[in-house]
């Protein structure tokens, strides 16, 4: 299949950037990123600079790949990362627009590559259990209900890709933050620090320049791991509860 591509090119963070047009021959079995590999291989063979995009595991788990495809983070298929999107979802002759994730807190580094280190700093603000290596009691000391473990797992399945931010008109990181807060708040091991965690992670989120949540829920719709906005409700409860009851000064 022949495709027309409109791809965002931007030399570096300072460059203004613009769309450029390309054509590529793909086939329906290829993944979207393999289609871009084919494009890059042809650019390199004609001594042109290839399109920079991020990717690694190509099995939908590392969270490295990004891309806004035809206006949708990770493209049109629900519950799917860009690397797991296959060309059978596109039509012969179609024009495909490819842009980087756009948010003030995710500055573009080059072409389709953005800096998502703000997410790391949010986790560093409190997205952990403060247990040193060697301190742990036996794993079965505290029973955890199957359903509770399951719910915690579903929140912990977040891959930190940032699609929720890219999907949100306010570029809010609430789904990401709430997934981590929920994952740990649901488990007994995370309880001790739950209040402080909710407060400091939300504080760091604001510091990084992410927008406010206005319950549009585009984040949930675009999340490749289908993380539920129920987590945002839980974060709000945790945060408000902590504001009233926290003894931390």
């Amino acid at each position, binding site marked *: 299949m022949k495709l027309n591509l409109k791809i965002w090119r931007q030399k*570096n963070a300072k460059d203004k950037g613009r769309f450029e047009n390309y054509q590529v021959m793909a*086939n329906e*079995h*290829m*993944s979207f990123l*393999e289609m871009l*590999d*084919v494009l890059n*291989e042809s650019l*390199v*063979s004609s*001594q*042109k*600079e*290839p399109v920079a995009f*991020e*990717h*690694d*595991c*190509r*099995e*939908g*788990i*590392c*969270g*490295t790949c990004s891309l806004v495809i035809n206006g949708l983070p990770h493209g049109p298929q629900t*519950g799917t990362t860009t690397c*797991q999107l*296959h060309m*059978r979802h596109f039509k012969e002759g179609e024009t495909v627009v490819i842009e980087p994730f756009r948010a003030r807190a995710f500055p573009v*580094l*080059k072409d389709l590559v953005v800096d*998502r*280190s703000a*997410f*790391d700093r949010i*986790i*560093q*603000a409190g*997205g*952990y*259990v403060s247990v040193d*290596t*060697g*301190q*742990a009691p036996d*794993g*079965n000391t505290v*029973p*955890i209900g*199957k359903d509770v*473990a*399951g719910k915690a*797992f579903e929140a*912990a*399945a977040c891959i*930190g890709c940032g699609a929720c931010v890219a999907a949100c008109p306010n570029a809010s990181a609430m789904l990401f933050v709430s997934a981590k807060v929920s994952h740990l708040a649901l*488990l007994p*091991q*995370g309880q001790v620090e739950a209040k402080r965690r909710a407060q400091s992670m939300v504080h760091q989120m604001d510091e990084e320049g992410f927008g406010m949540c206005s319950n549009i829920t585009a984040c949930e719709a675009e999340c490749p791991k289908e993380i539920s906005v129920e987590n945002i409700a839980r974060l709000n409860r945790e945060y408000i509860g902590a504001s009233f009851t926290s003894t931390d000064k």
Partner: protein
Amino acid sequence: MELNGNVPPGPLAEKWTKYKSSMPLVSPDNKRRLDVIVVGSGLAGAAAAAALGELGYNVKCFTFHDSPRRAHSIAAQGGINAAKNYKNDGDSVYRLFYDTIKGGDYRARESNVHRLAEVSADIIDQCVAQGVPFAREYSGMLDNRSFGGVQVQRTFYARGQTGQQLLIGAYQALSRQISLGKVTMYNRHEMLDVVLIDGKARGIITRNLVTGKLERHAAHAVVLGTGGYGNVFYLSTNAMMCNVTAAWRAVRRGALMANPCYTQIHPTCIPQYGDYQSKLTLMSESLRNDGRVWVPKNIEDAKAIREGKKKGKDIPEADRDYYLERRYPAFGNLVPRDVASRAAKVECDKGHGIVPTGLGVYLDFNAAIDRYGKSKAHSMNLENPSAQQIYDMGKAVVEEKYGNLFEMYEKITGEDPYTHPMKIYPAVHYTMGGLWVDYNLQTNIPGLFATGECNFSDHGANRLGASALMQGLADGYFVIPYTIGTFLSKEIRTPKFSTATPEFEEAENAVRERLSGFINNGGKQSAESFHRRLGKIMWDYCGMGRNTEGLTKARRMIQELKAEFYADLYVPGSMDEYNPELEKATRVADFLELGELMCLDALQRNESCGGHFREEYQTEEGEALRDDENMMHVAAWGWQDTSLEPELNKEPLIYENIKVAARSYK
């Protein structure tokens, strides 16, 4: 060179405990004065950086990813082993040790493996305390399942995303140390050389992948946790950026590469379907708990399936050959990976393959769906349930266990694996070989340590399923924090190192020269195209079946390819910018040298063992035939100067606690 494993004396089961109690310590005050560099932020690297930070060392941790949470450990699916014996099924530290040695075909060091088994239980406790949401039973207790090559249930898991959950646990522990200022994190930095001062590893040269700037970092010791080299085959289940460069640069500075030919070909991956394909996708070994592997008995049926005239589900039960159950009745579908992979190849070579390329077999869940459905019906007191009811209830159970894997399979292949049996074929997955290390995980270069997949230490010639996560975290959380003290305790009077020394100068210049050589090479072909060609040579001649003629030929072909690479490589862009093509070129250059060494290693190993199958050495039934008399050693290669022949050093393997026997799973 005399290789000393520095194994502590005493009975095997007491070595680690005694050694821990008697090894020299570094006081808290002195720890604050010592700097440690950790390269890599996967399970081994992140766990080591976090644990060393907790102890009080000043740690600098480096990753070429945009975040430490991306390392390829994240993609591990099935689980992590631990000798907890929660199932009361006869598991013990000794049994985990024994299974690992036997699984590795008696080619691993006893003392290291026993230590791994000893600390395995602590890992689970640590991870639970960090908030890793392992699968639970209704009682709230941790759940287990079985993996290949063992007869107990000792594998802990978090659905099909165990690696992700464990890595996030380690990443969170690391993040905590970053926030406390004990670890300084360098994202998007790639290590391109290790710096030696007076024969000890004292720093690294990195390239900032965003600005292209070369940087010098000094420390009292350097720990590598940089993963395996499976991508030398181009197509593998590894992530795209996995590479050997950090380890290989250490080799070029004098470190030894041990058993490079030991590669693991994983039996259950989605078969290859096109030339443009960039990687292969694993379907977790855990699927073999419930999936049955088969091919059509009749070649005509297989042919019809390949041509699209028949479907797998059209083949009646009597015409299916469940070849693993037939050949290995004791372990059946749960034989170790090397055995299962070779068996698949045998069937496909005979013409029973079921995908258009001929290279594919079935993994079928119908029996499991039926079994689970009937059990569910029984527990619900349903009398005479209909076939549809049984199917629906059984499917629900399978979905809960493996749902995300089935979904991933469907996304990639476009086929529903509940209706049609999965199509699978072996693919390169893991490398047991790696940097040679002693009991302290120290390479032959003092102060340079290697952890996780990047060392050769624990898996012999074949790794058992769910043991990679175990080893990565064991090394990172529970081994290196102790053993690094044996080196650092002698360094407490060593002041911090300046990077303005001739050694750093020389190393940085060498890196700059190398990179500018690639940029200004002025050829025509991309690094990718060379990588693809190298991968094909490796797979054809140094893959599942190897022989003298093929390996000799492959070595020559790689030498020619290397010459062509340096003559005709083209790298666009410049050194001083974000340039993935340049990164790729440095990695492919190192793969070319490693590939040659792998062929040489495979050539000298005149036996078949584990993942290394030399066609000349097999039993009449086609099983691997070891040569314990002549080959019971670790082959550790030095290749500092590639204009000379690599130098082979041997560390004999001595088995004092295990009776070495032919490895049988029948």
